[in-house]
């Protein structure tokens, strides 16, 4: 399979006055993949997407989306992308169906095709029963579905989703992600931002951005393994003291409380279980139980962000 680059940026930057919201971002997104962008609040995720959609001018660098230059040909891009904004941005005073009809109209879907397309989207997103409901009265999860339906009504080859599942319950999130995978399997490229690490693991590839800079790009497994972390869950008799002691050790990357357990991540391929015994033994903290566990994207993400915070 030959890969085709759908989104390509070189040193893309954007400043707002003094603030550099996006700094020197160079990345490629390939056709058909689900590309996740992870970063804490204010990292520059939305700003990046807006530049790629052609509704915000970059202050430096360049980029092409579906083959068109983001600065010179934004209107070409707009015909070929779908964009679900971070804030719910449908017309709350219109019904679900009216919203769908409106977006199919402005995306130039002809009158006859419109009917069948709306029916189809309503069916696949499970919106059929709520077509006549005023959008503003929908619950959060349903609103997100309608927003997704509107963003995909014209079957764009590239879809931008900016935190599509923020504030949505876990069951709805799962269903939403099933939907994303269904769209992707049809050949659509999806670029999605999220704060949820379980969602990151559902992406084909992910990018970490922090403070406007791109820190790492790769498959979830690559990104995790590049951090060189090993993680163990350790049960001790005095968790607070244990966490304090462990954090002081240079070989320990991160310690987090998980109920009665501590989740201990060790750097440089060191064994966190051995490390725990070594550090806690002399301090009289008893290790009751421990077992090594899989390193997750969340572990890698927290590790990256922490090390950046320490550096700055």
């Amino acid at each position: 399979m030959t890969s085709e680059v759908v989104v390509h940026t070189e040193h893309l930057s954007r400043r707002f006055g003094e603030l550099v919201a996006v700094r020197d971002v160079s990345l490629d997104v390939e056709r058909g993949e689900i590309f996740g962008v992870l970063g804490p609040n204010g990292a520059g995720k939305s700003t990046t997407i807006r530049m790629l959609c052609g509704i915000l001018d970059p202050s430096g660098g360049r980029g092409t989306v579906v083959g068109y230059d983001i600065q010179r040909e934004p209107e070409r891009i707009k015909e070929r992308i779908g964009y679900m904004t971070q804030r719910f941005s449908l017309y709350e005073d219109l019904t679900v169906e009216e919203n769908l009809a409106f977006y199919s109209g402005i995306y130039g879907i002809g009158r006859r095709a419109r009917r069948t397309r709306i029916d189809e989207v309503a069916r696949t997103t499970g919106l059929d029963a709520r077509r006549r409901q005023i959008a503003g009265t929908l619950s959060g999860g349903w609103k997100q579905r309608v927003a997704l339906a509107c963003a995909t009504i014209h079957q764009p080859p590239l879809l931008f989703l900016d935190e599509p599942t923020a504030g949505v319950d876990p069951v709805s999130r799962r269903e939403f992600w099933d939907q994303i995978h269904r769209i992707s399997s049809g050949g659509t490229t999806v670029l999605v931002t999220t704060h949820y690490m379980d969602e990151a693991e559902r992406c084909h590839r992910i990018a970490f951005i922090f403070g406007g800079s791109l820190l790492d790009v790769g498959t979830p497994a690559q990104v995790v393994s590049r951090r060189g972390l090993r993680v163990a869950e350790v049960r001790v008799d005095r968790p607070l003291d244990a966490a304090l002691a462990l954090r002081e050790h240079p070989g320990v990357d991160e310690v987090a409380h998980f109920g009665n357990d501590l989740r201990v991540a060790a750097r440089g391929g060191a064994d966190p279980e051995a490390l725990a015994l070594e550090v806690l033994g002399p301090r009289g903290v008893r290790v009751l139980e421990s077992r090594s566990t899989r390193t997750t994207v969340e572990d890698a993400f927290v590790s990256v962000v922490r090390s950046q915070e320490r550096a700055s």
Partner: protein
Amino acid sequence: MRGLSAGRFASIARKELLQLRRDRLTLAMMAGLPVMQLLLFGYAINTDVRHIPTIVLDHDRSRASRDFARSMEATGFYRLVGEVESYDEISRALRSGAARVALVVPPRYSSDLSRGRTARIQLVVDGSDPQTVASATNTAVSLAAARSSELLVARMVESGGQPVPMPLEVEPTTWYNQDLRTATYVVPGLVGVILTMTMVALTSMALARERERGTLEQLIVSPVRRVELVLGKIFPYVAIGYVQMTLVLAVGKLVFDVPLVGSIALLYVLALLFIAANLALGLFFSTLAKTQQQAMQMSFFFLLPNILLSGFMFPYEAMPEPARWLAQALPLTHFLRIVRGITLKGSSFADVASELVWMGAIFVALVTLASLRFRKKLV
């Protein structure tokens, strides 16, 4: 450049209509406001010309002079509120608003009358209110004329048919010259003022509302063209404009008996451009405003020069040169000439064609401005 799409334009227009239909409050206001304003304005005008506080400076102090003053009061237009001794007192009373009109009877009034010379009565009128000037002088002059013709007939009989001088004359003096206007002159103008007010306000919020609610981002990321968006947002409000115009004209006719001399059909056709120009202006404001509140403020600021410069309150001809240039740029200036021309004088299309050209130019300029100013960008 890609072509404009009727489908996209229609989608925008249909969406605006749907939203408007669900916005009952705005709809009610659009209908209620013109009627309320018209009644307020209309009755304010009517009550103004009754019981005008009037003072008398009587140098003659005769029965004849007191008679004239009393007959003035009998018309119902004047209310005698006191006697004064000097012109100084008159100016003080007018300035303070204690009186709007002063009747000045010269020393030899009764002797002039009885000797067959022309007796002159002076009427000093507060010109700050043009409505007062018109009615106050008209009434006094016709009163004097009625008196005069009685005397005239008597004297001509006495003199055996020889020509005799006018027995009685009123010399009106106003603080400054106003052309004389009446309620019928104001109500057609009100059509234009009310349309300016509501049309600009309605559309000025159209884009600001999308920005506030976050729907603008979704809109500008679509392939919709700027002109399609601007025209699509203007179109549905035209209907509202026509409803308002009909309301004002109907109430004006029924309640204030405003004559509709010319072709109403012509008026409705020409009004289209005026309504559209105001909507385009509102939309232009909308591109400047960040919030709906700012948009609202802008349209209110805009209303003031319209009322002052358009000829609604002060005659265009009496304004200084720079003010006239400004006035020419206001759609209302031209529409006032059209609406007054058609309703009061029965003007034809040819009579008002030049105003139409002006309004057309203003409309095109505003749509262009709004389209250019509206960038499909966030910042």
